[in-house]
């Protein structure tokens, strides 16, 4: 049995991840994550907003190796990607492996990854995006390529964790979570 890390954003019953989006019947805009109250483009009301599944295929628009974050259930470093989905929306998601800037432009697809165990014993599962041409399949934190291993060397993890916990006396933008803009 599996439990979604992000309830309401995808269906765990499919072999490959399919995302839950929203199509506006009025302007045909397609959104992910789904909208429920009104259309961001044309302002159409909820009765015009229809659920639509979105294939999790696209192109890597940008990527960043994250060393400091506020999320749970994942150890840094990991890679966050912006994926321009073939269906239209530009989304952000965790990648299955660390990649650098040279991967931008690559074809991407999502695959399931078990990231932990839920309180009821089920497998906590989420989609991770990987390069379609990649020969290496993500398997949790072990899915780190050679370039990534090089990047990991010498990282001051302890210092970063302290900063993430707000213990750094000179709080940087991130450790106060927000206020970036």
């Amino acid at each position, binding site marked *: 049995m599996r439990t979604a890390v992000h309830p309401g954003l995808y269906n765990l019953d499919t072999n490959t991840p399919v995302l839950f989006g929203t199509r506006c019947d009025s302007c045909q805009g397609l959104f992910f994550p789904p909208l429920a109250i009104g259309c961001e483009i044309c302002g159409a009301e909820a009765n015009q907003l229809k659920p639509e599944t979105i294939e999790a295929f696209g192109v890597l628009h940008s990527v960043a190796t994250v060393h400091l974050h506020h999320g749970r259930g994942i150890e840094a470093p990991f890679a966050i990607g912006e994926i321009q989905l073939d269906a239209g929306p530009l989304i952000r*998601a965790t990648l299955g492996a660390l990649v650098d800037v040279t991967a931008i432009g690559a074809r991407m697809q999502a695959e399931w990854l078990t990231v932990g165990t839920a309180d009821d014993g089920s497998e906590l599962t989420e989609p991770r995006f990987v390069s379609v041409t990649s020969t290496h399949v993500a398997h949790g934190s072990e899915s780190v390529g050679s370039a990534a291993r090089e990047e990991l060397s010498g990282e001051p993890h302890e210092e970063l964790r302290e900063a993430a916990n707000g213990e750094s006396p000179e709080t940087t933008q991130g450790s106060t979570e927000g206020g970036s803009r």
Partner: protein
Amino acid sequence: MRRSLAELRPVRVVGVGLHPYQKPGDTPYTALGVHAIRAALADAGLSWNDIDSAYTGTATTAMGMSRLMYRHLGSTGIPMAQVENASASGSTAFRQACFEVAAGLVDVAIAVGVDKPLKVAMPQPAAGIHDLAGNRVAPFTHFALLANRYIYEHGATAEQFGQVAVKNSRNGALNPNAQRQVARTLDEVMAPPQISGPLTRLQCCPIGEGAAAVIVASDDAIKRLELNSGRAIRVAASSTRSETVYRGENFDAALTRETTTEALSDAGITAAALDVVELHDAFTVEEMLYIEAIGLAKSGHAAAQLAEGQFDIGGRVAVSPSGGLLSMGHPIGPTGVGQLCEIVTQLRGEAGLRQHRGARNGLAHMVGVGAVCVVHILSSD
């Protein structure tokens, strides 16, 4: 229908004051704010009794905080309100003060930015919004993604982003109100800890506490109160816009371009006429993106022109002469007001070692979570 500030009666900045930005500590926000207000009153040659209306830019401290602060100057019964617009809170408070004077409702108004980083909360949880990235994407990762995209599109290097922090630390070292007052080398800027993507710690702004105050007045008040009109700086434009759907385009840059275009049009000048610019350089990549979005450099050219010194104090246009958010700091509520303090000081020719000679037109730019963008243009004339 939209009317510009230029269509209303003139508004001029007559006083500016700051409490130094600093690491979060035990100083009450009331003491931070009153320090800045007294400095602005002294700068203008005004007393608190001369102030008709007060706006407090704040986002991270507490509700209803204005009167608890202003009472220490004497309870005059004037209208007062908090203005929250994320990082653009102070800029928006200033805009409200300008409008009240420009509309002829009052003659003298004050905008005060003050904050302590006590309650920093993003709106998505309360909106019930979840996405695949969630809290794994802190603000610096949002900008790290933009940085790597910029590298991909323009062939820039991480070191070129680092040079923004080098320049701004050099400026901040000359600013007694800056939170970071140490000039850094590129090696120091690029040194670990790595935060996200190409961004290191010194390429991310410090969040601290502080206060900034700006007093604006009508020409009638300047005459009646016998203020020094030679030191009064005209507010030539005030523009603000919010994000629309850009279909994949970088919304921070697009929103900045739209808002700045409107402000420059209202002021009747072009970007080429700008002498000093304070912009939202919370992360190094932002300065490069906004230099281009404002029109100070063509797309992809900011890094090379930065390396040539074109954005230094004394260069073609001084960008972040205060040290910017990267060195002066980003205490949120005060930040936008503090930018205006720097622009006014520069246009008066009173910036001392930081002075950009001959400065006549200045632009202050902030973006805020939402996203919103606020741009002010000030001119000495």
